[in-house]
């Protein structure tokens, strides 16, 4: 997995690529918590180039969501590939995650 922290139009974006699994999710957790630990109003997560996610990756995002909600922030996902979206749906996460087609859609929400 590769993680890029991008400043896009003044917003913090985590652009992820590759496979998120038990091996790579601790690094994702560290990067994500570093950003939301600063209590940003919104963190955008671009999954456009993610080819795989397992339950440890999902647990990382659920933990992040709980944390941002605790201070009134938002965790927004965009560009989710079909296979990853199917896993989100199965896990009922499409009901609790804010999901957008593109990064600009998320920022404009």
């Amino acid at each position: 997995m590769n993680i890029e922290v991008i400043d896009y139009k003044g917003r913090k974006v985590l652009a992820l690529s590759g496979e998120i699994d038990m091996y790579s999710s601790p690094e994702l957790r560290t990067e994500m918590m570093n950003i939301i630990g600063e209590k940003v109003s919104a963190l955008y997560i671009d999954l456009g180039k993610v080819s795989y996610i397992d339950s440890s990756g999902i647990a990382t995002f659920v933990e992040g969501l709980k944390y941002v909600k605790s201070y009134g922030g938002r965790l927004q996902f965009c560009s989710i590939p079909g296979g990853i979206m199917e896993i989100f749906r199965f896990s009922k996460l499409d009901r609790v995650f804010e999901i957008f087609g593109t990064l600009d859609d998320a920022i404009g929400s």
Partner: protein
Amino acid sequence: MKDGLTVSFPSHPKYLSVVRALTGKIANIYGLEETLSEDIKLAVDEACANVIKHAYKGDTKKKIILKYINTQEKFTVIIEDSGVRADLRSIQGRDLEDIRPGGLGVHFIRRVFDVFTFDEKKAKGNRLVLVKYHGKAE
């Protein structure tokens, strides 16, 4: 005709990507449909991750044995370890409606495999047996 492959790998999470690649390739060799093969990759990954986490308690220097067996009737994956015994009755996963970190791996395994059971005859450690019957709708 029975066909199969057995491999072993260290209980380090860095090898899970190898397990996924191998599982996908095996599913391809046995002619399993692409979507099914993706679901099987995820399920086997989750089962091996559970071995590392629960049976070996994070010890990355143990051994996990993976067996793939294909017959006309079914595709079987057997995952063996020598760690702490699992109790099938306590492996439920969380309620899917209860959104919280953890507890999803078992659901990913059960949604694709028709059989999820531990071979009680194994004296030490665990032998998880996962079976997918050919031609049976998910």
